[in-house]
């Protein structure tokens, strides 16, 4: 995938299995969101993406970093819109409101965390096979974080494929089977669950380095 002559993603070769959770980590601008948009079919790219459910987009629940909401649309109507789009009938939205959101209020009046929970509820009710969650834990309160982690575990048990990006390492180590490190548009490392601690240590070393000393606080 590229903008003009500038390639955003290069030589990405990755496989996501059913019933597994994958983490994508990388600095801001590493290409995480671009990778997600390519998988979703929202960006043009050179290459092939294969999936058992085709086209992927019709079976994919995409949670953007900053979900978009129309003015004067309630939480309930937002869910209805996304479920209608996938032809998935919903019988009892109130019962499915696991995050206790004020569904009859305009979604634009929600806090950042509530907006994220609303967008997540909608893609869960779409009964997707694949999930891409871009920063799902950002801005979400601690109780909902716990619930979200449990939801991810349940989706995994149901054989769904989940890809998550997060800047909070612990949220990934709690949920993922594999973490992929994306750097300047390429996946430079794939780490399995047993080596997560090692990866965290390595990332810490790489990121922090001697920057704290440079601050001159000590």
């Amino acid at each position, binding site marked *: 995938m590229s903008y003009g002559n500038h390639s955003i993603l290069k030589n990405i070769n990755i496989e996501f299995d059913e019933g597994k959770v994958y983490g994508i980590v990388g600095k801001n601008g590493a290409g995480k969101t671009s990778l997600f948009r390519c998988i979703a079919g929202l960006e*043009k790219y050179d290459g092939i993406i294969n999936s058992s459910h085709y086209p992927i987009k019709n079976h994919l629940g995409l949670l953007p970093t900053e979900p978009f909401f129309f003015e004067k*649309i309630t939480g309930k109507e937002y869910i209805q819109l996304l479920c209608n789009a996938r032809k998935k009938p919903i019988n009892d939205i109130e019962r499915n409101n696991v995050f206790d959101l004020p569904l009859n209020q305009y979604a634009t009046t929600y806090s950042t965390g509530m907006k994220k929970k609303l967008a997540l509820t909608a893609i869960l009710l779409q009964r997707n096979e694949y999930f891409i969650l871009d920063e799902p834990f950002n801005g979400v309160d601690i109780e909902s974080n716990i619930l979200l982690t449990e939801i991810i575990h349940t989706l995994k048990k149901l054989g769904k494929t989940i890809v998550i990006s997060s800047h909070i390492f612990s949220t990934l180590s709690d949920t993922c089977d594999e973490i992929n490190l994306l750097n300047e548009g390429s996946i430079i490392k794939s780490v399995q669950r047993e080596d997560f601690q090692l990866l965290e240590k390595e990332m810490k070393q790489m990121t922090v380095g001697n920057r704290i000393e440079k601050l001159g606080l000590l």
Partner: protein
Amino acid sequence: MVQGKQQMKEYFALQFNMINRRFRDGGVVPIFAYFIFAIGFYLLSNFLFKTTEFAVYLYPFLYINLIGRLSETQRCEFLTICFGDNQFKKIRIAENLIFTIPFVSFLLYKQLIIPILFILLVSLILALLNFRTKFNYTIYSPFSKRPFEFTTGFRNTFPLLILAYVLVIIAASVNNFNLGIFSLMIVFGSSFSFYLSTENEYFVWSYNLNPRNFLINKIKTALLYSAALTIPIVVLLSFYFQQNIGLLFIFLLIGWGWVICGIVTKYSSYPNEINIPNGMLLALCLTLPPMLVILTPILFYKAEKRLENILK
């Protein structure tokens, strides 16, 4: 004080530049756009005043409906944070007064002084009251089952829809069929406007439909919901003006034609906003309804092609 004046000057210069930039991005020279707007405004106002004697009451109402959008809560909060309370009020008064210019100019031309005074008074009151912030509750929408165009559109324009219903009652009581048709076209005009702004691509991408079925689905919803909105008007006009049922039916078809044309025009430029060539085709369809029969299928085909990128 001087700093305040400078702030206001900079704010309005920025707004002016932003509007001009939008025109240029759409491929139109700003001065030409202003000229077209002035001509269009004059023609529509003239049409309104020729159609009904109630135009003198409708005109201020249309003005209020227009400036109501400037009082959006988020917008007002942002301006208050940027400029402080006093400066914000001055900006809001100035904005509302700028928007009175076309209305007041036309009323001056018609030598109607009382509506001018009313519009000026209302513009000052609304700038100071910021009523939308105080009444920030969820407005009921009968169109929640198939969001979003009619759901949000109804909430944004319900005063205009109420006005249309009031007008049709007046039309029946004073035996003025033209006024009844005008009220019908207010409803269709509103329904048409619900489809003009371009939604985020996420809400198109989400659909499990191919481009053709996506467009048909949008058209079906629009026909169903616009029919629901026009039913009271159609029933009343059919009852009171039985001799004009044929004409009423033609206007119904034109109204639905406008709405369909609005939908296919929007998606023929998607994900960009309606571009100038397509906008011109749309304007042609609005002014010369028979053109709808030829241009709507062309725009439908263009929209289908355009959506193939997102709805594979």
